[in-house]
């Protein structure tokens, strides 16, 4: 029967390097090249710049010596450390309580709270800063709460940072607290252990890695943040704003590079600690653990509910203030409703054009970034051979987490704006913004991809190869569809971050490629506070709509996929 009708497999002679293996190698090299050009070369160029004078001659550590002899600059180190530490303590303690409420109590309205708590991620970090000025500034309606202290400075910075970092901490701690083993709690109860001792001996040790990891992530986000201190810092300078001031204000690129190197240190340190912790965490929870289920306890449940909703209330207040400020004539003198701040006419900053550019950037990064990052993760996880290349790619994929946006942006100037760089044409284009944003947010997407790929059967590729199906067919027909939820998560993460980020791109736009987040900064600098608020709200709403679309799409796709995910 089939003997005559089906083309039989004919083994090729001496096919030691198949075209497929060659294609695989080329794609792998392309992935490596992307991160070498988009990350390694710029960083190395920046490190070299910090050791050169204006003329480009090597002067050793002279720039660093000058830095440490300038009190105005050195003070920023202590400033950055103190606000970052305060923000870390505030955020992690609040987030821990809320995460505990979500995972370990029967408090009502968990789902609603989680939705509200995620909102700050959708806004640029400039938004809370603007709202705080309206709330606590010289003419703010809650000014008296500060009892004479100024919001412009460490207080405002800590509050603003706490607002937009909170969702990150909450997600990390919720995950950590979800991984519980009911058997331990049952054993403790059977032994008559008091609740507080159970908490100290079981709950805390169980989440210690998650907690430490969360502390470092929050600290890094706080110390590298640029948006909040830029808007509300006043005379209180921190490292991130120093980079901006040295480069944009004083055109002192060498000193900008020095500050960047110093800003890189705490981020690299916390990156190393975090990787070290992740490695130890692997065997924490055995596969036989039974998840712990909370039982109702009205006093505890309602206490946590009140706390959580107080936090959610603050989040809504901050966002609501920005929305309100963008829709009234002139605070605090004329409170009548208007949409004129949304016209952005004659104010500079780019107006709706900037918003459109941001949209273009966000869609490009989401589309290109998702494909590139997921495919690279697939090459690292699921292909054979070229081990050093794959390990190198993995290392470079982990690195962006340790590079603050300001540092990456400045490094791009140094590298791409060099005379004689064949990639010089990229400078000032939308393409460089896409590349920069893609690299800036690479690591989280990479980790999400790797986690998703690790859950797949390791033999899919081998089966495909044994059936003589090229690897790209198996990738597109099986791997990609099965990993679709993770892929969608990555794309929406990239979209929202591209929409809201300001730190790296503030160095890289030109008049044709102004971005909405940069426009917020410029409108605020120029004193058009209501328009700045309007632009920030616009960014927030755009992210919100995309996030809602993503949720709906994921829901539909998962529903369809249920056909094969659960027994049909």
């Amino acid at each position, binding site marked *: 029967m089939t003997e005559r009708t089906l083309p*039989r497999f004919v*083994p090729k002679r001496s096919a030691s390097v*198949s075209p*497929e293996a060659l294609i695989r190698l080329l794609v792998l090299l392309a992935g490596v090249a992307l991160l070498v050009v988009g990350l390694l070369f710029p960083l190395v160029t920046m490190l070299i710049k910090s050791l050169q004078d204006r003329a480009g001659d090597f002067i050793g550590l002279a720039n660093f010596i000058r830095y440490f002899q300038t009190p105005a600059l050195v003070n920023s180190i202590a400033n950055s450390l103190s606000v970052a530490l305060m923000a870390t303590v505030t955020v992690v303690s609040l987030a821990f309580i809320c995460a505990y409420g979500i995972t370990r109590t029967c408090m009502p309205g968990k789902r609603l709270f989680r939705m509200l708590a995620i909102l700050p991620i959708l806004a640029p970090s400039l938004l809370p800063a603007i709202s705080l000025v309206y709330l606590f500034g010289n003419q703010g309606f809650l000014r008296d709460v500060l009892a004479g202290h100024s919001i412009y400075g460490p207080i405002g910075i800590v509050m603003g940072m706490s607002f937009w970092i909170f969702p990150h901490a909450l997600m990390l701690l919720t995950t950590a607290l979800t991984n519980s083993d009911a058997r331990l709690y049952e054993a403790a109860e059977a032994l008559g252990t008091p609740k507080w001792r159970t908490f100290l001996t079981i709950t805390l040790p169980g989440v210690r890695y998650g907690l430490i990891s969360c502390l470092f992530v929050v600290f890094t986000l706080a110390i590298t943040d640029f948006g909040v201190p830029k808007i509300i810092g006043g005379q209180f300078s921190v490292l991130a704003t120093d980079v901006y001031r040295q480069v944009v204000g004083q055109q002192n690129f060498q000193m900008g590079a020095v500050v960047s190197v110093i800003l890189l240190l705490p981020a690299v340190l916390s990156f190393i600690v975090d990787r070290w912790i992740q490695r130890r965490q692997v065997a924490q929870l055995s596969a036989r653990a039974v998840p712990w289920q909370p039982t109702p306890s009205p006093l505890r449940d309602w206490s946590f509910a009140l706390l959580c909703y107080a936090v959610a209330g603050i989040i809504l207040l901050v966002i609501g203030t920005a929305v309100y400020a963008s829709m009234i004539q002139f605070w605090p003198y004329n409170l009548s409703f208007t949409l004129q701040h949304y016209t952005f006419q004659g104010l500079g900053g780019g107006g709706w054009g900037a918003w459109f550019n941001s949209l273009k950037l966000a869609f490009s990064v989401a589309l290109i970034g998702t494909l590139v990052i997921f495919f690279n993760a697939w090459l690292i996880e699921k292909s054979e051979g070229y081990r050093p290349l794959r390990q190198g790619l993995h290392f470079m994929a982990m690195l962006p987490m340790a590079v603050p946006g300001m540092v990456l942006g400045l490094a791009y100037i140094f590298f791409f704006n060099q005379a004689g760089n064949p990639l010089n044409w990229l400078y000032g284009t939308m393409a460089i913004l896409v590349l920069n944003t893609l690299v800036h947010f690479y690591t989280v997407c990479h980790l999400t991809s790797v986690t998703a790929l690790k859950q797949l059967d390791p033999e899919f590729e081998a089966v495909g190869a044994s059936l003589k199906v*090229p690897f790209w067919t198996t990738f597109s027909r*099986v791997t990609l569809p*099965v990993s679709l939820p993770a892929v969608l998560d990555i794309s929406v993460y990239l979209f929202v971050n591209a929409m809201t980020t300001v730190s790296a791109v503030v160095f890289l736009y030109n008049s044709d490629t102004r971005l909405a987040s940069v426009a917020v900064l410029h409108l605020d600098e120029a004193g058009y506070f209501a328009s700045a608020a309007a632009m920030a709200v616009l960014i927030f709403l755009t992210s919100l709509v995309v996030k809602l679309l993503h949720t709906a799409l994921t829901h539909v796709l998962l529903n369809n996929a249920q056909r094969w995910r659960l027994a*049909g």
Partner: protein
Amino acid sequence: MHTTMTSLLAADSPTVMTPTTPHLRIEAVTKQFGSFTALDNISLTINEGEFVCFLGPSGCGKTTLLRTIAGLARQTSGTLIQRGNDISTQPTQARDFGIVFQSYALFPNLTVFNNVAYGLRNRRVDRARITARVTELLALVNLSGSEQKYPAALSGGQQQRVALARALATEPGLLLLDEPLSALDARVRGHLRSQIKALQARLGVTTIMVTHDQEEALTMADRIVVMNHGVIEQVGTPAEIYHQPASAFVASFIGTMNFLDVTVNSATQVQLAATPFTCQPHCLPVGEVARLAVRPEVVALTRQAGMLAGEVTDIEFLGAFQRVTLRLLGTDQTLLADVPSRDSSELNLRLGQTLGINIPADAACLYPAGSNPL
């Protein structure tokens, strides 16, 4: 179902070649992972149409050898020749085989039909022919009517058969099975064992199966390759492996085996405690300490204490027979003997009883003392 099978048989039988034509020659294959040697100079020939089992404990290198044949692992040195072609450096895609993994690795988002058709789609075969082929294959593995189901809706045994159909769809010259039954429960396993064996015999496809289950290997294989620590301990038919184990390792790995410490008296005689005992000719030096291997089922117990006697210390009821543990008189060695149920009443078995022991000379093998069973 049956008619399909016969029509397949008729069409395929001309391709079955005489069993002595070599299909795959493995020559001096060595595989190293860093300083660890997973395969140590393996040479083996597998004939056309043969069903060969790689058997051994976990970590013995059997799966590595299978993956090397598939091109999924690259040998450090050595040559692989399939039907006269040197495939040593060929990538997986260029080699002619189908494979079924322990996990089946069925594509969860594709239907049974699309899973089986996966390899056919790539060959520019028209739809009608693909449909016909898939229908035929599903009939062959007894899964007609499941075309539109997803793998998650199937039982483990059914998934296993879909994986088998998918591997056979492109008519590979060689079928590789990597512990295909170990994820199934005992009853399904027994049933599938005979089904796979029958299918293989009918299609005549050269098959290599990796397993750690000796029963599986003994019942299915034409030849068994027993492996340990990256080397081949013995190659032979199931009967050869069972009755003439080439080493103490093989003797202890397959079935149950008594090992008794003895001293060599001559080329055909050993001394077991105070008793001289005739055994098969061997070439161990006289006076040497050695190990005598005896299967429990060849040990005969009698009521008259003969030259060799033992005291019953334990009786285990195993249904068709009883396994009796005896302490050999005059030594501290123990011996297991399987007594068929109908003989046990005759013996009137009870604890503490002393019984005579008879071991036929041709049923005992002798191994050097240093050799390690398991």
